[in-house]
């Protein structure tokens, strides 16, 4: 199993540009999450999904959009990039929310908006 994969690893955007961060998992997990990690801070949840076709907002959803058309993929779309979106983005997945639940994280995408 590859686990959770994210592409790209690094990206530099100009203000106003758009891009999609890709996330895929091959563990047949129902739950998927997008987080951002700003310097010196913990992770903050942007969006999450409890299954294909179902998404919901987290703590910091403004400026982002997501879709979940398949169980495996959960892309994060940035529209009109702003410097405040400079961060490291992590995708994660989990099978369920039960007592045995564990989040598995991808390696992250470092995004810089100039």
């Amino acid at each position, binding site marked *: 199993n590859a686990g959770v994969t994210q592409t790209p690893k690094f990206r530099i955007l100009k203000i106003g540009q758009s891009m999609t961060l890709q996330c895929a998992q091959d563990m047949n997990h129902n739950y998927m999450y997008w987080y951002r990690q700003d310097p010196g801070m*913990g992770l903050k949840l942007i969006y*999450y999904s409890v299954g294909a076709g179902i998404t919901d907002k987290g703590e910091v959803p403004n400026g982002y959009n997501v879709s979940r058309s398949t169980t495996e993929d959960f892309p994060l779309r940035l529209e009109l990039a702003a410097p405040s979106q400079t961060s490291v983005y992590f995708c994660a997945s989990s099978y369920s929310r039960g007592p045995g639940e564990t989040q598995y994280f991808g*390696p992250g995408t470092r995004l810089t908006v100039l």
Partner: protein
Amino acid sequence: AQTVTQSQPEMSVQEAETVTLSCTYDTSESDYYLFWYKQPPSRQMILVIRQEAYKQQNATENRFSVNFQKAAKSFSLKISDSQLGDAAMYFCAYRSFNEDQFYFGTGTSLTVIP
């Protein structure tokens, strides 16, 4: 929103010694989960240990153990026989039993001195 507080931005420990990382959280709920995640320089988040709030017994995983004090809303991580590979950022995280969202602390950077 729940809050998770890690009051120690940095900690250091001599190799083979024991270190304790602190975490407190704020919640009005009685059913929840607590986690410690490790983030090495590779940036990928790795689950270290988890605790279900309904369990009175403290969780242990090899050299890692927790001191869970539910009334005090405290969840500290003890690392015994510290190894060089333990050097990383450590994040405490909270998740309600009834919600799908995780809340992370700001992290503690652990240095292991040879």
